[in-house]
C-alpha cells in the first residue's frame, strides 16, 4: 500500500516550450475584458454597421422586391469594392474601434504597471516580445471581430445572395484586400493602444489620451486645411491616413489628394516608435534613478 506524501508535493509533469508562449495572456485577457460591466452590450453595438451593410447587399440583389421603395435609376449604392471600403473605413466604425480601445485597451499595460504585476510576468520564462504579443493579440481579437470577420461574411453573403460567382470573377482580389486592410488597421490600432497604455499607471488618463489623440489629430488636419487649403495636411490625421490606405487597398479613388504611400510609411513609422518605446518602458521593476 502506498500512502500519499504529506506536505509539499512535486509536480510530475513536464514544462513545455509553447510555440506561442503568450497564448495564455491572450486567453485570460479576453476573458477578463468580457467580464467588465456593459462590455458585451457595448461590443455588440459595434456590429451594427455590419448588419446595415448586410441589409444593403441584400437589397441590392433583390431590387425587384423593393421596387416600391426605390426606383432602379436612383439606386443609391452599388456593391463593389468601394462598398467594402466604405464599410471598413467608415467614420462610425473607426470611431467605435477607438471606443473599444478606450474600454478594453486602456488598462492593458497601465493596470499591470499600477498593480506591480509586471514582475509576475517577467519572473516567468517570458520574453518582452511574448508579453507584448499577448497584449497585442487581445486587441487583435476584438478588432478583427468587428472588421475582418464581418468583411469576409459580407463578401460571402454577396456571393450567396447573388447565387453565382460573377462577383468573384469581377474582383478576384477583393478578399485579399479585405484581409490585408483589416489586419493593417488592427495592427496600427494595437500599437496605438499599447503605446498609450504604457504611458501611465493611471488607466483613466490613458483612456482620455486614447480618445483625445484620435480626435485631436483629425481636428489638427481640419485646422491646417482651413488655413492653407492643402490636402497634404491630411497626413496629420489618424483617420484620414487610415481612409487613405483603405482606398488604396480597395482600388478606389483616394479621398485626399496625397500619395497613399506617405500615409502607409507614416503609420509604419508610428508603430516602430511605439514598439521601441514599449520595450524601454516595460520591465520587471520600475527603476527610479
Amino acid at each position, binding site marked *: 500500500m502506498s500512502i500519499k506524501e504529506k506536505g509539499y508535493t512535486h509536480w510530475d509533469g513536464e514544462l513545455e516550450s509553447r510555440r506561442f508562449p503568450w497564448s495564455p495572456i491572450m486567453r485570460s485577457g479576453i476573458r477578463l475584458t468580457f467580464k467588465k*460591466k456593459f462590455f458585451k452590450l457595448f461590443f455588440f453595438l459595434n456590429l451594427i454597421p455590419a448588419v446595415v451593410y448586410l441589409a444593403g447587399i441584400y437589397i441590392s440583389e433583390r431590387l425587384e422586391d423593393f421596387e416600391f421603395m426605390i426606383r432602379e435609376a436612383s439606386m443609391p449604392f452599388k456593391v463593389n469594392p468601394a462598398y467594402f471600403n466604405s464599410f471598413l473605413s467608415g467614420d462610425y466604425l473607426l470611431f467605435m474601434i477607438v*471606443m473599444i480601445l*478606450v*474600454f478594453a485597451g486602456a488598462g492593458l499595460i497601465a493596470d499591470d504597471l499600477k*498593480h506591480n504585476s509586471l514582475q509576475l510576468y517577467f519572473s516567468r520564462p517570458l520574453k518582452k516580445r511574448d508579453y507584448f504579443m499577448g497584449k497585442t493579440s487581445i486587441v487583435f481579437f476584438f478588432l478583427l471581430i468587428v472588421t475582418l470577420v464581418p468583411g469576409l461574411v459580407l463578401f460571402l453573403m454577396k456571393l450567396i445572395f447573388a447565387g453565382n460567382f460573377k462577383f468573384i470573377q469581377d474582383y478576384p482580389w477583393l478578399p485579399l484586400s479585405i484581409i490585408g486592410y483589416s489586419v493593417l488597421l488592427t495592427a496600427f490600432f494595437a500599437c496605438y493602444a499599447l503605446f498609450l497604455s504604457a504611458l*501611465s499607471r*493611471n488607466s*483613466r*488618463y490613458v*483612456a*482620455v*489620451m486614447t*480618445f*483625445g489623440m484620435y*480626435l*485631436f489629430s483629425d*481636428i*489638427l488636419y481640419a*485646422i*491646417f486645411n*482651413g*488655413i*492653407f487649403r492643402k490636402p497634404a495636411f491630411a497626413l496629420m490625421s489618424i483617420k484620414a491616413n487610415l481612409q487613405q490606405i483603405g482606398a488604396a487597398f480597395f482600388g478606389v479613388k483616394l479621398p485626399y489628394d496625397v500619395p497613399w504611400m506617405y500615409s502607409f510609411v507614416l503609420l509604419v513609422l508610428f508603430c516602430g516608435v511605439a514598439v521601441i518605446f514599449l520595450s524601454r518602458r516595460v520591465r520587471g521593476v520600475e527603476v527610479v534613478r
Partner: protein
Amino acid sequence: MAQPENTSSMGFVSSVKNVFSFYFLLGRKARRTKVFYFISLIPLMIAAFAKFAELVLQTHHLEGIYIFSNIIVAFYLQFLVLILALFFGTSICSEELEGKTLTYLTTRPVPKAALLLGKYAAYTLLIILMMAAGVILSFLILNADGLTDPSRWRILFRYLGVLTLGLVCYTAFFTFIGTFLKRSILFGLIFSFGWENVIQYFPGSTQRFVIAHYIKSLLPSPTTGRFSFLLFQLEPTPPGRAVVVLLVLTAVFLALACLVFSKKEYILED
C-alpha cells in the same frame, strides 16, 4: 454647500486656500500636466507655422483675426476644453481613491467641502492657464500686424472669457460626476462627445439642455466663414442670461459635488 464652521481652527476660506496651494503644486509636478500643457500649446505652433508660411514662404495672405477666431478658438472650444475639464474634473475625486491618498486629507482639520473646492480651484486654474497661454500667444502671433486695433483685443478678451467660463462650468460638472461614478471617464466621453455634440444642434428649446449651447451663445454672432457650420442651427440665448445660467450651473454642480463628497463614505480598496 457646507457652511464655514466656527468650530474649525482656521476658517473655511483659509482651508480652501491651503488645499488650493497644495494641489496647485501637486498638479504642476505631475507628468500628465506637462503632456496636457504641450497639447494645449499645439495651436500656438500652428499659428507660428502659418505666420512663418505667410512671411517667409509668401504662400498666401493670412487673415489673422479670422483664423484666430474661427479656427484656434474652435479647436479649444470643441476639443480641448472638454478633454481638460473631463480629465481634471474627474481626477479631483477619483485620483484620491485610486491612489488611496484620501486618508491624508480627511484626517486633517479641513472640511470636506473645502477639500473639494480647493482642489477644484487649483485644477481649474491650472487648466485655465494652459488654455490661456495657448490662446493669447497664438493671438499675438496671428495678429502681429494689427495689435494696435482695439477691436481685435476685444475679441481676444471675449474669447478668453468664454473659454474660461466653459472650463469653469464643465470642470464643475465633471467634478460632480467623479464624486459618485466609478467609470467616470467613459461616461464623460459619451456625455461630452455624444450627448453634447448631438443635442446642441436640435432645434427649439431641446438644445438648452446642453452646456455647449450657453457657451456658444456667448460667441460673437457667427460670421459666414468656412467654419460656420459648427454653429449652425444655434438659437442663441441672450448673452447676459447665458452667463448667468453657466454660473448658476457651476454653483449647482459644485454644491452637489460638495454634498456628495461630504455625505458619501469612500472605502479604499484595490
